[in-house]
């Protein structure tokens, strides 16, 4: 495991970066197994959703997170469930990791009763305050400003929660990134900005749209730590987030963490990816494979146990799907509710 390396822009001079170096937050065995299992649930569930979309059961507006689950879950693992999260569109591990029931997600996706957003937001806007799931902005970059304001509230309320906001590399080119990081930094707000850099924004490679290789180097413009971590390494991610959370809870302000990630599938469910040449190479970098190997080598799970886990989760997913398919569609009358309070 590599230590999370501070972004080049910071050199070794910034004390905040030293703080990151000082911590040592390896995930314990139990955590690794847990992350693996939730990642598997997310992967299987998502694949089933993609299939459902291709069958026409739900709209294809699903953005598979395959390849990015391990890092997402490692990040969440070192936070509290009470730490409010604004997630990105990339996959469902964020919300599955927080414990939102699969049936609720399926109900949101298919406009059936039992969902979390009364048919308003569909799959993209699952919400579950008790689990710290605060939703998603449909316009990319809309989350930065809201996360900043949530951090402002936490600080005024003298709570020790931290806000975690996930977003993509492409999204970091919205102006709201700049305004928010500056203000969060100047006010020392408890926000962790986590950029998942998977090298793509739909069909546009990051190198075409973005002037720097490391999004984390942008932290220099706000005087905050900018940390690059390997999305294939759960420990590295966890450690960086743990340090950022400690810093945030101590009133020292936000951190920008960049996860070098891999997008295994298309931008959305039915994307054929004609524009993409790196697909095979990417499959080999699937963090699930690495973690799988590691768990086996460490004797934490046998191949047998994993196969059993897969069967169990598949059944769980199919059961959830059956349950939701049997639920009634939400009423069109809901078009008129939830706007004003």
């Amino acid at each position, binding site marked *: 495991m590599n230590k999370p390396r501070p972004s080049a822009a910071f050199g070794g001079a910034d004390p905040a970066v030293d703080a990151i170096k000082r911590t040592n937050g390896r995930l314990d065995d139990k955590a690794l197994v847990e992350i693996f299992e939730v990642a598997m649930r997310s992967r299987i569930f998502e694949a089933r959703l993609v299939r459902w979309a291709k069958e026409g059961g739900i709209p294809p507006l699903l953005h598979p997170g395959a390849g990015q689950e391990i890092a997402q879950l490692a990040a969440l693992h070192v936070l509290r469930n009470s730490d409010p999260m604004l997630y990105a569109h990339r996959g469902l591990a964020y919300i599955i990791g927080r414990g939102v029931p699969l049936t609720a997600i399926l109900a949101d996706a298919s406009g059936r009763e039992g969902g979390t*957003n009364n048919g308003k937001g569909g799959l993209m*806007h699952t919400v579950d305050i008790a689990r710290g799931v605060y*939703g998603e902005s449909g316009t990319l970059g*809309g989350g930065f400003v809201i996360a900043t304001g949530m951090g*402002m*509230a936490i600080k005024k309320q003298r709570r020790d929660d931290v806000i975690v906001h996930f977003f993509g590399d492409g999204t970091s080119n919205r102006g709201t990134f700049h305004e928010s990081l500056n203000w969060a930094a100047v006010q020392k707000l408890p926000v962790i900005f986590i950029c998942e850099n998977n090298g793509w924004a739909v069909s546009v490679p990051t190198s075409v749209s973005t002037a720097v290789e490391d999004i984390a180097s942008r932290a220099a413009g706000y005087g905050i730590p900018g940390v690059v971590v390997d999305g294939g390494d759960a420990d590295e991610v966890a450690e960086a987030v743990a340090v950022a959370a400690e810093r945030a809870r101590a009133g020292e302000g936000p951190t920008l963490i960049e996860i070098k990630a891999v997008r295994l599938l298309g931008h959305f469910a039915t994307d054929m990816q004609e524009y993409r040449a790196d697909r095979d190479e990417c499959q080999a970098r699937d963090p699930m494979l690495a973690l799988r190997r590691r768990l086996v080598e460490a004797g934490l799970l046998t191949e047998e146990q994993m196969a059993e886990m897969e069967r169990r989760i598949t059944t769980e997913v199919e059961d959830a799907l059956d349950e939701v398919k049997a639920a009634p569609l939400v009423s069109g009358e809901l078009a008129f*509710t939830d706007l004003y309070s």
Partner: protein
Amino acid sequence: MRQLSYAQAINEALVEEMDRDENVILYGQDVAAWGGIFRVTTGLLDRFGHERVFDSPISENVIVGAGVGAAIMGMRPVAELQYADFLLTAGDEIFLKAGMWRFMHGGAFKVPLVVRLPSGSTSAGPEHSTCPEAYIMHSPGLLCAVPSTPSDAKGLLKEAIRNDNPVMYFEHRLLYQKKGPVPDGDVTIPFGKAAIRKEGKMLTVIAWQLMLQRALKAAEELEKEGISVEVIDPRTLTPFDWDTVLESVKKTGACLVIEEGYRSLGVGAEIGATLFEKALPWLDRPFRRMATPDVPLAATRQLVDRILPSSDGIAAEIRDMLK
């Protein structure tokens, strides 16, 4: 009754609400140390401290967007954009975030945010002069207040702060120094209740803020000529008090809307269309609008004066309508 200026009334509303509820915070460019470029928030920093009254960067997106974020976490932010025109620099945050975050997430949150928007044609050029309330009235999820008197400025702002929905509160820069009676004590003014500023029989005029001043002046003038005009101030545009307007129009049979915003799809368009839908049997005369004639407001006084309705122009229009 006490006489306060419109600016003082706003200031008093802020003080009272911040005294009452510690979740109310106030921020924006120059609102703290300097008390606002129009000096509306003077004294608030001293009274409430930097935790609750603070200056912001020139970052309109996050000024509004952070307000939404803070509001969903239980605060009651009052954010200021230095000029109402700048709401367009925070379009996503106002229209899609403040207006829709609650709806989109199935009502999981409330968004008790107030955005203060100083508006009005001060000959400060195309980007510092407009009354952009029609953009708000077109957009679901947002309430819209347009106070015309010191008393309304106070009462509507107090109501806006207590309201659980996002409120766009337009304060007119050319009214800041205008004085008027303001009742003592904790008086709020409900949203969606228009005020009949002058009763009359022959024609209904609808106007607010600066144009209301001018309309009232014209109406007084006309009264002397025996022309009896009813003048209605809607006070809030969303919700809009259709009952009062319809009742008045059924009595007078004619309606003129006077507004400072752009004419096409200005507020008057909604009023005209709605009357045409709901009051055709009572309407004797064609509807009319006076407004900024679909050109930006220049930085030069003559150009602005040429296009904005004056009280003389309003009187002439009414005479012509009733001919």
